[in-house]
């Protein structure tokens, strides 16, 4: 296996011009894009006006590990 030189490592991981992906040891939440919104009364009933954030209890398996 070829050992990359330290310079190449630095260039790849410390230079945003070369490495634009998510960084190690950082948590990422994607930015929400405004698409469409619920009418106000439905928003109040659902707890959000954004359909993409409307995830009621039980719908997402990762939120119901113990339920």
């Amino acid at each position, binding site marked *: 296996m070829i050992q990359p030189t330290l310079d190449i490592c630095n260039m790849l991981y410390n230079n945003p011009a070369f490495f634009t992906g998510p960084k190690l040891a950082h*948590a990422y939440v994607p930015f929400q894009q405004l698409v469409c919104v619920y009418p106000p009364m439905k928003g*109040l009933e659902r707890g959000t006006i954004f359909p993409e954030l409307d*995830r*009621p*209890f039980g719908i997402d398996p990762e939120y119901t590990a113990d339920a």
Partner: protein
Amino acid sequence: MWIYDKKLEYPVKIKNCNPKMAKYIITQYGGPDGELAASLRYLSQRFSMPTEEARSILNDIGTEELAHLEIVGTMVHQLTKGVPADVLEKNGLGAYYADHDHAIYPISAAGNPWTAEYIQSKGDPIADLYEDLAAEQKARATYENLINLADDPDVIEPLKFLRAREIVHFQRFGEALRIVEDKLAQKKFFITKPEFLKKRE
């Protein structure tokens, strides 16, 4: 400064008292992952945030958590209103009644009084925002536990609303984290060494 609206963010109209449920729900008033901790955490951390967006997000969410504190307080009040001392006692609220009668006091479900040890304000915006993301997940998990313990739709509906808000808050804190990380990264990174640094060598 705040402007107060004399209504709840989500209506609470509980027809049947349930002191046992009140004893559990009060944890979101004064417990470790409750709304008092959330509001004071965010409203304190906002001062040391490096961008206007992060300050605004903490300010807005901290404000909304105060509105949630009011909802949870109302729920506990309605669940215990007019319940005689002996019934409170049978439902695990004897000690609470001795100290607080039918008043609302910030404690956890286990009876521990609220403490600032539940929150941190670190002065490091990354550390603070990660705490906030975790706090939203812990609050969501607590609301899910409370929904599992409840059987009255008058109680479950506001709990579902409060749970849903935690997911929205998590998204906003995630966006704040990226804005802050981008800003902090910009400050330290130069593609070519700027002139003023060269001169010093």
